[in-house]
C-alpha cells in the first residue's frame, strides 16, 4: 500500500524537554491512524510539525513519497494536509462562513470577497461529507460539537486529503462521538487519510486501522487494533493497568453545601436556557449532571460561579444566599471551579506556572497577604501542584503555554484542589488527561469527598459520571428531567435519557 506520510528521525526540543526524540511514523494512504500516549508524550508537537507549524530540529518528512520541507501551514495545506487543533482556533465574532473561508477567500474582481461562491462551496463540502451546519451562525453561539464540525469543514474546504484531528472526542458526548466517527468513516471512504489523537482507548480500538503509541517523545510501537486490548494499549502508554472510576462507599452527609432553587436564566430570543432548575449538593457528595452539550449546563454553571446573573431563583452556598454575589466573593467563600475550556477560562497562557497557580485565589493566603502578593507563597503552591498532580514540566518558571494540553488541565485541577474548596464545580475535569493521570484526579476528588467536599460534576464522559457520582441528574432543554442512581444505570441507558428517548416511558 502506498504511504501517505512517512516521518523519519523527527526530533524536536523545547526549553527543558525533548518533545519528539527520533520519531518514525508511517501512515498508509486511506487509513485511519490513531496516535496515543500519555500527556506530554509529544503527540501534538509531532502533528504540528507535520502541519508545518513548527520546524523539526532534525528528521525528514515525506508526503506521498516526496521529501518536503514545511515552513508554514500554508505549505502543508497546499500539499493537502489539514489540521483541527486540540484547542480550537475559531474567531468567535465571525460567522461560520467567514471562519471557514478565512485565509482562503474566493475573490471577485476588485479584491471583493465572493461570499456566494464561498457559501456554495461550503454547502457542497457539508453535503459531500454529511456535515450539517448553518453558514450564518455566529461561532460564539455554537456548542462545542458544532464548533468542531466547523473546524473540520474548514479543513475540508481547503481540499485536505490528509486530516489531522488532535483529541477531537475530548468534549463530545457519546452520541456526538458516534456522529464524528460516522463522518470520519465517510471521509475515509472518499479516499482521505486520517490521523487522530485520542486518550479514550475503546474509541481508538473502535475506529482506528493502525495505532501508534508514543511515550516520552519516542515511538513505543505500532499495532493493529485487532491484535490488542485496551489493557495492552494502556500498558504500552503508561506501563500500568486501565483504571476504572469507582465512587466507593458513600460519604454523603445531611448538610447541604450548595443549593439551587428554581433557577431561571433567559438566553437569546427570550428562551429560558435554564428553566426552573433546583438541586442540592451535600457535603461529601458528588452530584453528576448528564446532558448533551447545549442543554443549559454551561449557563447553569455560569450562574453558580457568578459569571451570569440569573433571572429568577436563588443560589445558596454554605447556608448563605449568594444569588447576586460577585465571582470573587463566592470564590473566597470556598467555591472552586474547573472550567470546561482551559485556554479561554482557565489559564493565562503567557504567564508563569506559579502565577497561573494563583489565578482565582490571588486574594487568599498563602498567595497574598492583605493587598500584597506573596511570591514565595505562590511558588510553594505551584511546586506542590507540580509534584502532587504530576504536572510534567522542567520547572514552574515556564509559561503555561509550554505545557501540553493534558498537563495544563492537571495544573488547573491541582490549583483548585490545593486551595481546599468547600464546593467544587468540575466541568469536564479530566478533559484531555491521559488514562493514568485521570485515575489520579479521580482519586483526588474522592479523597476530598471523604473530607466533606461537595462536588457538582459536569462531564461528557459517561463512565466518569457513573463511576464518580453519588447521584446523577439529567439536563435536557434547560430542565432537570431525571434523577438517577448511578449504581443502577448503564452508560447506554444514560445516553437514552440524555437525548430524551428514555423519557417518554419514564416520565409518564
Amino acid at each position, binding site marked *: 500500500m502506498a504511504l501517505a506520510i512517512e516521518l523519519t528521525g523527527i526530533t524536536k526540543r523545547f526549553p527543558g524537554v525533548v518533545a519528539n526524540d527520533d520519531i518514525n511514523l508511517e501512515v498508509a494512504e486511506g487509513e485511519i491512524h490513531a496516535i496515543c500516549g500519555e500527556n506530554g508524550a509529544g503527540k501534538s508537537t509531532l502533528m504540528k510539525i507535520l502541519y508545518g507549524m513548527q520546524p523539526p530540529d532534525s528528521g525528514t518528512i515525506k508526503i506521498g513519497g516526496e521529501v518536503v520541507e514545511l515552513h508554514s501551514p500554508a505549505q502543508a495545506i497546499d500539499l493537502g494536509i489539514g489540521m483541527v487543533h486540540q484547542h480550537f482556533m475559531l474567531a468567535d465574532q465571525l460567522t461560520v462562513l467567514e471562519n471557514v473561508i478565512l485565509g482562503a477567500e474566493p475573490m471577485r474582481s476588485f479584491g471583493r470577497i465572493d461570499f456566494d461562491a464561498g457559501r456554495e462551496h461550503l454547502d457542497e463540502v457539508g453535503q459531500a461529507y454529511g456535515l450539517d451546519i448553518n453558514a450564518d451562525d455566529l461561532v460564539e453561539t455554537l456548542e462545542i460539537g458544532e464548533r468542531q464540525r466547523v473546524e473540520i469543514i474548514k479543513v475540508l474546504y481547503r481540499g485536505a486529503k490528509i486530516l489531522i484531528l488532535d483529541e477531537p472526542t475530548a468534549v463530545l458526548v457519546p452520541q456526538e462521538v458516534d456522529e464524528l466517527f460516522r463522518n470520519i468513516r465517510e471521509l475515509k471512504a472518499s479516499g482521505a487519510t486520517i490521523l487522530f489523537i485520542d486518550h479514550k482507548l475503546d474509541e481508538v480500538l473502535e475506529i482506528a486501522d493502525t495505532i501508534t503509541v508514543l511515550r516520552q517523545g519516542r515511538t513505543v510501537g505500532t499495532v493493529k487494533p485487532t491484535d490488542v486490548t485496551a489493557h495492552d494499549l494502556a500498558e504500552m502508554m503508561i506501563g500500568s493497568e486501565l483504571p476504572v472510576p469507582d465512587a466507593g462507599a458513600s460519604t454523603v452527609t445531611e448538610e447541604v453545601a450548595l443549593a439551587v432553587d428554581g433557577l431561571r436564566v433567559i438566553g437569546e430570543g427570550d428562551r429560558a436556557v435554564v428553566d426552573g432548575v433546583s438541586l442540592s449538593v451535600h457535603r461529601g457528595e458528588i452530584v453528576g449532571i448528564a446532558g448533551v452539550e447545549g442543554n443549559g449546563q454551561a449557563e447553569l454553571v455560569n450562574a453558580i460561579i457568578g459569571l451570569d446573573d440569573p433571572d429568577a431563583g436563588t443560589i445558596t452556598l454554605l447556608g448563605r444566599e449568594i444569588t447576586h454575589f*460577585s465571582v470573587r466573593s463566592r470564590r473566597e467563600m470556598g467555591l472552586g471551579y474547573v472550567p470546561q475550556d482551559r485556554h479561554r477560562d*482557565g489559564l493565562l497562557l503567557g504567564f508563569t506556572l506559579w502565577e497561573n497557580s494563583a489565578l482565582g485565589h490571588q486574594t487568599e493566603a498563602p498567595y497574598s497577604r492583605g493587598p500584597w502578593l506573596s511570591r514565595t507563597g505562590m511558588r510553594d503552591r505551584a511546586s506542590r501542584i507540580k509534584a502532587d498532580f504530576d504536572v510534567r514540566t522542567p520547572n514552574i518558571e515556564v509559561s503555561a503555554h509550554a505545557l501540553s494540553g493534558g498537563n495544563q488541565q492537571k495544573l488547573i485541577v491541582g490549583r483548585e484542589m490545593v486551595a481546599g474548596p468547600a464546593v467544587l464545580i468540575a466541568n469536564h475535569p479530566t478533559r484531555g488527561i491521559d488514562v493514568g493521570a485521570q485515575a489520579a484526579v479521580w482519586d483526588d476528588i474522592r479523597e476530598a469527598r471523604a473530607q466533606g467536599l461537595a462536588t457538582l460534576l459536569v462531564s461528557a464522559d459517561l463512565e466518569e459520571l457513573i463511576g464518580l457520582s453519588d447521584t446523577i441528574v439529567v439536563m435536557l432543554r434547560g430542565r432537570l428531567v431525571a434523577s438517577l442512581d448511578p449504581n443502577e444505570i448503564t452508560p447506554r441507558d444514560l445516553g437514552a435519557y440524555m437525548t430524551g428517548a428514555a423519557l417518554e416511558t419514564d416520565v409518564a
Partner: protein
Amino acid sequence: MTGRLSHRLMLASAAPVAAVVIAVVLSSIVLLISGSNPLAAYADMVQHASKLETQVDILNRATPLYLSGVAAAIGFRMNLFNIGVEGQYLLAFIVSAHLGAQVELPAVFHIAFILVVAMAVGGAFSGAAGVLKVTRGVNEVISTIMLNAVVISGLAAWWIVEWQAGGEISATGGRVGTEPIAESGLLPNINSWLEVFTREIELGKKLTGMLVVAVAVGVVYHVILNRTVFGFDLRSSGANPTASHVGGVSPKRMVVIAMTLSGAVAGLVGMTELMNTGYYPSNPISLLGFTGIAVALLGRNHPAGVAVAALVFAFLDVSSGILQISGAASREIVEIMKGVIILTAVIAYEVVRRIREREEAAAAAAAMAASPAAAS
C-alpha cells in the same frame, strides 16, 4: 553564574541597543543623501549633551515624556489604547492652573492640592472613556480621540479666554494665559540635588522638581503592578479577560480603573510646566501625549524601560535645537531617528526573543544528553 547573568543582561539590552545602532546607521544615510556630514552632526549632538546645562534640559524634557509614557503603558497593560493622554493632560493642566490660582494654602498643601486636582481631572476624563466602553461598548480609541478634540478645540480654547489673567486680552492683543499661581503652589527646582555631584548649574537652567514625582510614579507603578493583588488582577485581566473573570476579576471594573489610573498619571504630564511657570499659557507644551505612546512602546511598558526610552527621546528632542544652531544638519533628522528607533526596536525585540528561545532549547538539549533519565 555571574557569566550567565551578564549574558542575560546583554540579551535583555540587545534589542534597544540594536535599535539605536540601526537608527544611527539609517540616519547617517539620510544625512549623507541630504548633503550633511553625519559625523559632524553626531559630534555636535554628543558634545552638546555632555554639558551639564543640556543634561538639565534633557531631564526636564524626559520628565513629562516619562509620565506620558507610563500613562500609556498602564492602558497597554490592560489591552487598552489610551490615545487621549494629550487631551487629558491639557485639561488637567488648565483646570489645575485655574483652581491653583484661586486658593491660598501653605506650600506643601498648595502643591499637593494642585497635583491632586490635576490627577483627579485627568483620571475622571479618561475614566469617562472607560465607562463608555463598558456600558455602551464604545471603543476607547474612538472615544479618547473624540475627547481629545473636545478638550483641545473646545474646553481649553474656551476656558483660556474665560480664565484669562486680568479677564481680558493683553495690550499687545496676544493671550497671556491663566492667572499665575502664588509662589506657595510651585514646586521648587532641585538644582541643588544635582549640584552636589558636579558644579553649579548656569544659564538660569532649573531642574524640575517634577522629576522626583515622576520617579515616584515609576516606583509606585512597578510595585503596584508586580507586587500587589490589584496589579495581578490588572495584568491577568489584560492578558485574558475571560479567564481572569472566572478567577474573580470583573473585566468591566478593571477597564474603568485602568483608564482612570492612566488618566490620573496623564494629568501630571503638564505639571512640569505649571510647576515652573505658574500658569497655563496660550501655547502650552503639546504633543507629549502622542509621543508618550511611542515611549511606552519602546520601553515595553516596563517602568525602567519607559524611563530609558523617555531619556532617549528627550536627548533627541534637545539635540534638534543644537543641530539647527550649529547648522550641521536639519533638525528634522531627529524625528526620522525617533521613527526608525521605534520600528527597529519592535523588530529587534522579536529577534532577541527567538535567539533566547533557541539558546534555551540548546541548553536543555545539552542537559538532556548528559542525563537521559531527565526526559520527563
